[in-house]
């Protein structure tokens, strides 16, 4: 059986780069059970031998603070990898070793990859590798993950370590007299009763009890309540003593001693730094401009606009290829298949439905390439830093900015990559609030609807109306976020303690792998669901069919357009539209608009084409919206207020199905996807009715 090595390390330590260098394309991306943390696995080949590699989420510590930390810790404890390869940033040794110490404390063999030794050397940092290895009692191998230097030696060292049978001992850390005494008292109790012994060493369990680690204490309670409460009594005694004598608590004490241990270890000749004084590294000099209080926001706006323009410019042509490819496929089916229901299903249901989703692939791909570059370069963290204060007012987080922008914050994004971009948010409540509010942004599929209505009814104020639309959607999203954070996802804001990683050039391989895998997830997951949904929608708009004699009557009269309308009215969708009409009339929508909006639940693009069909114009596609626009403008049922009410409704109502699938995925439950469907639709109808009624009262 192949041995398993787990890769652990701080965020930005080059862990993922090393993982990519080791496994190349032989990797698989999945999720840890029950959580949205990505699990990457891969295979490393050394001659005829194979090693199974697991890329653990990047963490600063092994407490149960974040989802990532819980996942990493559970994996190490439950799956017992042969060796943990701990990636340590050589230019940032003190902080990185804090995690190393905690992994060693867990009693799993550790092999250190001392990464980015080239960067460290460039900064005049010299590290005595043998000394470090000797003092920690673990092998240390210098590496440069970007070029793959040292990866062979690293795997050799890990393989050798895996063959050793003797368990490595704990680092000789003292946590201070009080804690040490408590540990000495607790350890025999724990090992005597074998508490949690299947997974953790006794000393580690004792440490976790002293740190009041909720996860471990609750498992201990369940396993042996008596022993657990005895341990907690010892902990309480030490806690009381420490707070009286030193005004501190065991957890702080333990952390301080770990840091103290590292500091003294580095001073014992491990670390030599030349001209340490206030030397400015390249990253600091870049930051003097990029997070400058005046220039910073201006540059940020420019970067976001550029991301936008480049994404849409690059994806336009491949998007058209896909579009014409599906159109060609449609006409082949049209020519080859016999008229009838099957043909209608294949063309309107399957090809149009799946095509509508796949046409988004180029946008998604390029958007992710852009975001991955911003993320990997370190700039995204600066954006969060600069905007955190604004977003905090509404119960969100600095890192919510990017999902909002990607979803269409400047108009013309897509909520699907936007929802996925919320992954960079580490705090669950702020992330959920972000997931539920980004669909209010004006995505590229809503824009044609707005363009149509504005063109038809507000032609003189086009630019101002677009601007107003953008402002309204932002205000709506932020207010809803505020309301959600004060009601159903109430809770204290998570601390904003975030590393601003040094600027680095993203690696081409990293960007391709990262953007590629996210895009593939979109194609696979959303593609299957949308297929089912579009078939369902097609059926709703096609059945039941008109009785034959009525069809013949229309055909004989040569009224094809009227036939299409009558067929639609007769279908389930048509009946639903008519049933809803008394309610939607309050917002100014008739039954035909209702059908279009119903189609919009599947995908917002459907709104225009359905409106076209419903208004008896046969096929109207986005590019030829002019015809429909004139028709609506001259219709008795429509006036500017109706159009504005519809704009408001379309802006706020249910996310499309693909976005809902993504929300369910990212929020970890379909409950939230259905919540956003219901809540957003109710909000939208309430707002639209308010607008329409108020406008009517004012005589608009």
């Amino acid at each position, binding site marked *: 059986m192949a041995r398993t090595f787990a890769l652990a390390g701080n965020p930005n330590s080059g862990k993922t780069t090393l993982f990519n260098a080791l496994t190349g394309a032989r990797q698989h991306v999945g999720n840890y059970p029950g959580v949205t943390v990505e699990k990457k696995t891969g295979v490393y080949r050394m001659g005829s031998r194979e090693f199974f590699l697991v890329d653990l989420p990047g963490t600063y510590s092994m407490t149960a603070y974040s989802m990532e930390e819980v996942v990493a810790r559970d994996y190490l404890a439950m799956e017992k990898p042969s060796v943990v390869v701990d990636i340590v940033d050589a230019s940032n040794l*003190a*902080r990185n070793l804090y995690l190393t110490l905690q992994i060693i404390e867990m009693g799993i063999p550790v092999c250190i990859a001392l990464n980015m030794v080239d960067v460290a050397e460039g900064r005049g940092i010299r590290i005595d590798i043998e000394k470090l290895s000797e003092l920690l009692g673990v092998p240390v191998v210098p590496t440069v993950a970007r070029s793959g230097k040292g990866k062979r030696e690293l795997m050799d060292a890990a393989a050798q370590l895996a063959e050793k049978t003797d368990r490595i001992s704990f680092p000789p850390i003292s946590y201070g007299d009080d804690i040490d005494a408590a540990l000495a008292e607790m350890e025999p109790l724990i090992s005597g009763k074998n508490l949690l012994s299947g997974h953790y060493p006794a000393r580690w369990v004792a440490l976790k009890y002293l740190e009041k680690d909720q996860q471990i204490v609750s498992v201990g309670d369940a396993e042996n309540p008596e022993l657990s409460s005895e341990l907690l009594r010892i902990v309480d005694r030490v806690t009381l003593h420490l707070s009286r004598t030193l005004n501190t608590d065991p957890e702080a004490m333990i952390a301080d001693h770990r840091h103290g241990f590292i500091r003294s270890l580095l001073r014992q000749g491990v670390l030599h730094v030349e001209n340490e004084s206030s030397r400015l590294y390249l990253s600091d000099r870049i930051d*003097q401009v990029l997070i400058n209080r005046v220039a910073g926001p201006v540059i940020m706006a420019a970067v976001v606009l550029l991301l936008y323009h480049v994404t849409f410019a690059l994806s336009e042509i491949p998007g058209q290829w896909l579009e014409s490819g599906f159109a060609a496929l449609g006409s082949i089916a049209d020519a080859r298949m016999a008229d009838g229901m099957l043909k209608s299903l294949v063309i309107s249901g399957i090809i149009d439905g799946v095509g509508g989703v796949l046409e988004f692939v180029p946008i998604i791909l390029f958007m992710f390439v852009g975001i991955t570059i911003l993320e990997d370069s370190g700039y995204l963290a600066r954006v969060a*830093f600069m905007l955190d*204060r*604004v977003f905090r007012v509404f119960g969100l987080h600095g890192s919510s900015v990017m999902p909002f922008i990607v979803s269409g914050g400047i108009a013309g994004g897509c909520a699907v990559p936007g929802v996925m971009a919320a992954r960079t948010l580490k705090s669950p409540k702020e992330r959920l609030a972000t997931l539920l509010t980004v669909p209010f942004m004006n995505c590229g599929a809503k824009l044609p609807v707005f363009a149509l209505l504005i063109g038809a009814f507000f032609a003189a104020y086009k630019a101002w109306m677009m601007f107003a639309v953008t402002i309204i959607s932002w205000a709506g999203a932020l207010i809803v976020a505020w309301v959600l954070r004060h009601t159903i996802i109430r809770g204290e804001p998570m*601390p904003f303690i975030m590393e*601003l990683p040094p600027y680095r050039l993203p690696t081409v391989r990293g960007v391709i792998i990262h953007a590629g895998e996210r895009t593939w997830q979109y194609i696979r997951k959303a593609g299957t669901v949308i297929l089912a949904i579009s078939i369902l929608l097609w059926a709703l708009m096609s059945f039941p069919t008109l009785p034959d004699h009525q069809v013949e009557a229309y055909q004989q009269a040569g009224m094809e357009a009227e036939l299409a309308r009558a067929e639609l009215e007769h279908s389930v969708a048509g009946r639903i539209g008519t049933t809803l009409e008394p309610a939607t009339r309050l917002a100014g929508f008739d039954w035909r608009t209702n059908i279009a909006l119903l189609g919009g639940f599947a995908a917002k693009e459907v709104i225009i084409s359905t409106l076209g069909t419903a208004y008896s114009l046969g096929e109207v596609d986005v590019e030829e919206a002019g015809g429909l626009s004139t028709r609506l403008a001259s219709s008795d049922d429509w006036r500017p207020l109706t159009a504005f009410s519809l704009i408001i409704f379309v802006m706020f109502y249910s996310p499309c199905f693909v976005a809902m699938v993504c929300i369910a995925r990212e929020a970890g439950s379909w409950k939230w996807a259905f919540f956003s469907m219901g809540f957003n639709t109710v909000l939208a109808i309430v707002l639209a009715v308010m607008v329409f009624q108020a406008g009517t009262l004012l005589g608009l």
Partner: protein
Amino acid sequence: MACINMRQMREKQSGRITAVRASGELGRRIRDMGLVPGTRFTVKGRAPLKDPVALRIAGFTLALRNSEADYIDVEVE
């Protein structure tokens, strides 16, 4: 050498942490990032609205909100 709260520090000012008064999750998070008594740092800058603050610590840059800086006492140079 004066002892002040981290929130009161000016840009480019350097100091040494003397105490972290936070406990629980916030305290853990602060300590996990290496902000413990004895750590030296420089205030690198502040965001456009003066919050959060960016700190330059030995090998890296860390950002935190003023509401978190409140728990950290510093001896300034």
